[in-house]
């Protein structure tokens, strides 16, 4: 099927609707919306479909869940808790797990879906980041994404606390610890949140409202906005043959993308159902009911909170005592600083990049990560920062299972959190340049064909052939990273707005961030490669004939 012909079912359906509503044009236009075809573009859908499944399973759970901290004596079928005093919330979660038909499966799917929802968002976001798909005109959608991620963390935290088991209680306790450590307002915030002294009687029902009403509502609204914006602005696409900033190459929404999307929904659902059926998650009956007096070894939050836990665990026990007030830096810093760095950094990045590169053009072609080495390195430094904190959130499990010393891990972590990102930056930067060099080499020297030829004078050479057309086009889609014109004009005077200190800094950063590090065209990213050269004319003719219409002259 070609992109231009209207598939029959569409023509029929839209004809029917058109006759009645006059909406045929709208449908015809939208059902044929073109979607590009790259696997990484499906990652966001993991989050979307998980969210749908969260809504469905969550609704199921609300039928039996009782958001109350009233005390009851357990009288269900789980023997080792019989006769134990617990909250109604916990008892009803046990009831869902053991007596409601399919209840445990639903609870487990709900929880696995929560993990994949947030994990899916993270990988999706990384894809967008590394390909520069957040650039104009998509900055707004990027901001929506950052909000979604933040809200999802809150949604996860509130949901995790609902069953009121001992493990979730530990998380709640930390939440309260953070609230109360806020300067000046801390105790008010804590009393407001818990309706009095911790843990009080209110927090579960309050979290319940947040978890099933407020936050999902906002999430739903933001997700819709996200999708509409995406629809209107269209997807970015990877550089390649025939792909320009003005077109989108791929399959039409109907039928090809819809089938793929449908299949992918089923994959997501299948994975979640499989996990829910075969992998136990959050076995609350093993944890026991929450009492503030008990705390278990190995208490951990869900993975998406792990980086905060890690920050808390490596923070030295600093505090400031001033005029009878205590400022517990050991709690405030880990609770607010990493989260602040990551979320603010994410939200501001598109604008910072714009400011540094001075690039205000629209972009619809995605960057290959290697072609913007500084951005990619910043991304990997951030991943390392996050990853180290995340790992250290499990420092006790690591110590216990690999027989390492807890103190040593903590100390290594305290240094690694600063050195790791720097190291990641340098390694990534070098790797990107290396990959660019390789591209340049492939374009100018061709790829190894596996054919060895013996020359008349006895020398062996391997024949290099030009890369396949689409691959070459993919590689040639490279553009230099833009930078501001910072150089002095003819009279030797730098532009006006770059003369103050901030302007000079901006010019410097632009110089470093932008520009072409390894030009593809000069073709000699690697010198001293004589034996590998193609026969003279053959080489360049082959490259030149590759349908190269997107020159990169700047």
């Amino acid at each position, binding site marked *: 099927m070609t992109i231009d012909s209207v598939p029959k079912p569409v023509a029929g359906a839209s004809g029917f609707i058109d006759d009645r509503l006059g909406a045929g044009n709208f449908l015809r236009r939208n059902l044929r919306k073109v979607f590009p075809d790259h696997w990484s573009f499906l*990652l966001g859908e993991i989050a979307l479909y998980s969210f749908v499944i969260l809504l469905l399973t969550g609704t199921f759970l609300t039928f039996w869940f009782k958001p109350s901290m009233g005390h009851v004596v357990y009288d269900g079928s789980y023997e*080792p808790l019989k006769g134990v005093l617990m909250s109604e919330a916990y008892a009803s979660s046990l009831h869902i797990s053991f007596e409601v038909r399919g209840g445990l499966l639903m609870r487990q799917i709900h929880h696995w879906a929560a993990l*994949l929802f947030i994990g*899916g968002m993270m990988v999706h976001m990384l894809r967008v980041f590394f390909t520069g798909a957040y650039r104009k005109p998509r900055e707004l959608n990027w901001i929506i994404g950052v909000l979604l991620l933040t809200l999802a963390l809150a949604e996860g935290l509130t949901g995790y606390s609902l069953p009121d088991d001992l*493990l979730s209680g530990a998380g709640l306790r930390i939440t309260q610890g953070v609230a109360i450590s806020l300067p000046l307002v801390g105790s008010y915030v804590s009393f407001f949140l818990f309706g009095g002294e911790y843990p009080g009687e209110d927090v579960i029902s309050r979290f319940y409202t947040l978890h099933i009403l407020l936050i999902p509502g906002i999430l739903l609204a933001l997700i819709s906005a996200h999708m509409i914006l995406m629809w209107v602005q269209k997807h970015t696409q990877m550089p390649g043959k025939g792909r320009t900033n003005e077109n989108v190459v791929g399959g039409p929404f109907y039928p090809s993308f819809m089938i793929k999307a449908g299949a992918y929904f089923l*994959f997501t659902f299948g994975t979640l159902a499989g*996990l829910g059926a075969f992998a136990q998650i959050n076995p609350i009956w093993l944890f026991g009911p929450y009492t503030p007096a008990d705390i278990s070894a190995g208490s*951990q939050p869900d993975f998406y909170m792990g980086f905060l836990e890690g920050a808390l665990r490596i923070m030295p026990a600093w505090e400031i005592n001033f005029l009878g007030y205590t400022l517990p830096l050991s709690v405030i810093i880990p609770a607010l600083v990493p989260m602040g760095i990551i979320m603010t950094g994410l939200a501001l990045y598109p604008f910072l990049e714009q400011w540094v590169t001075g690039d205000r053009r629209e972009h619809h072609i995605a960057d290959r990560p290697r072609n913007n080495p500084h951005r990619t390195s910043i991304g990997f430094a951030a991943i390392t920062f996050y990853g180290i904190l995340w790992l250290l959130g499990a420092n006790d499990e690591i*110590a216990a299972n690999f027989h390492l010393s807890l103190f040593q891990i903590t100390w290594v972590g305290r240094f690694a959190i600063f050195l790791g990102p720097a190291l990641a930056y340098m390694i990534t930067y070098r790797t990107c340049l290396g990959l660019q060099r390789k591209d340049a080499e492939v374009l100018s020297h061709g790829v190894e064909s596996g054919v060895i030829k013996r020359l008349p004078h006895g020398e062996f050479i391997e024949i290099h052939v030009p890369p396949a057309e689409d691959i070459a086009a993919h590689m040639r889609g490279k553009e230099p990273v833009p930078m501001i014109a910072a150089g002095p004009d003819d009279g030797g005077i730098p532009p006006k707005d770059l003369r103050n200190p901030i302007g000079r800094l901006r010019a410097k950063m632009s110089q470093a961030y932008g520009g072409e590090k390894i030009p593809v065209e000069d073709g000699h990213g690697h010198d001293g490669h004589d034996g590998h050269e193609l026969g003279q004319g053959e080489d360049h003719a082959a490259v030149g004939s590759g349908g190269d219409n997107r020159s990169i002259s700047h």
Partner: protein
Amino acid sequence: MGTGISVNRITARRRHPLARYAVLLLALGLVGGAYTTFVLPQTQSADAAVASGKADDVTEGAKLFAAHCSSCHGLQAQGTENGPTLVGVGAASVDFQVSSGRMPAANPGPQVPRKPPADWVTPDKIRQLSAYVQSLGGGPTVPGKEQVDPALGDPAKGGELFRANCISCHNWVGAGGALTQGKYAPNLNQSTPEQIYEAMITGPQAMPVFNDSTITPEQKRDMIAYIVGVREQTDPGGFGLGRIGPVTEGLVAWIVGLSALALAAIWITAKKRQANHD
């Protein structure tokens, strides 16, 4: 007795190439034991033990002790720089340490680990060693069968006590956890009911003692019922993932869930491209 060494295994061990050395050691032990018994002045309780007809165990135990333990604990269990005094630790402590393979200790380290008991260790030998150490200065004794029978305990009550007293080190299901200075609270998967009881009354290494006034013998039995019951329970939700909570769950979410979906994405889009070529 909790070591569960079957007769078959013992016969197999007799044929073990190391058996010769074991015999040699035993002979040495006998000499040492004889020395201890006859030459060294005995404590009163040892005399009492002789009087009460347990003398056999005590003498045999003394010999074993001299052979296997005295290098670190001293010939009279008075302690050396390599090991603490055992006077007053009681039979329960010896039973716990030897049946769980911790003693005789091997390599020095932050904590003596549980390991398969040494070849010569049999329930009888443990009883003899225990009797000997008990004879030195008393101490907590080995619990009776009934005292540790999980079937007689109330797991729900035991669970509450377990959560209140033990999980801060051992985790909710006794999966273990890290302590400071390279020490750790071990998992409780292999501990026999006797060992659980003895661990509570003797407080090995970094573990506190839970004597009968803090936790009554009956409550201890409840806790044993809980620990044993929960660890034998099949996980209703599927694979238990080590029962250590969100850490393994997070790993599974990424390694199984997200990777599977990324592969599916690659597969779906690759499928499409092929169709285009036709």
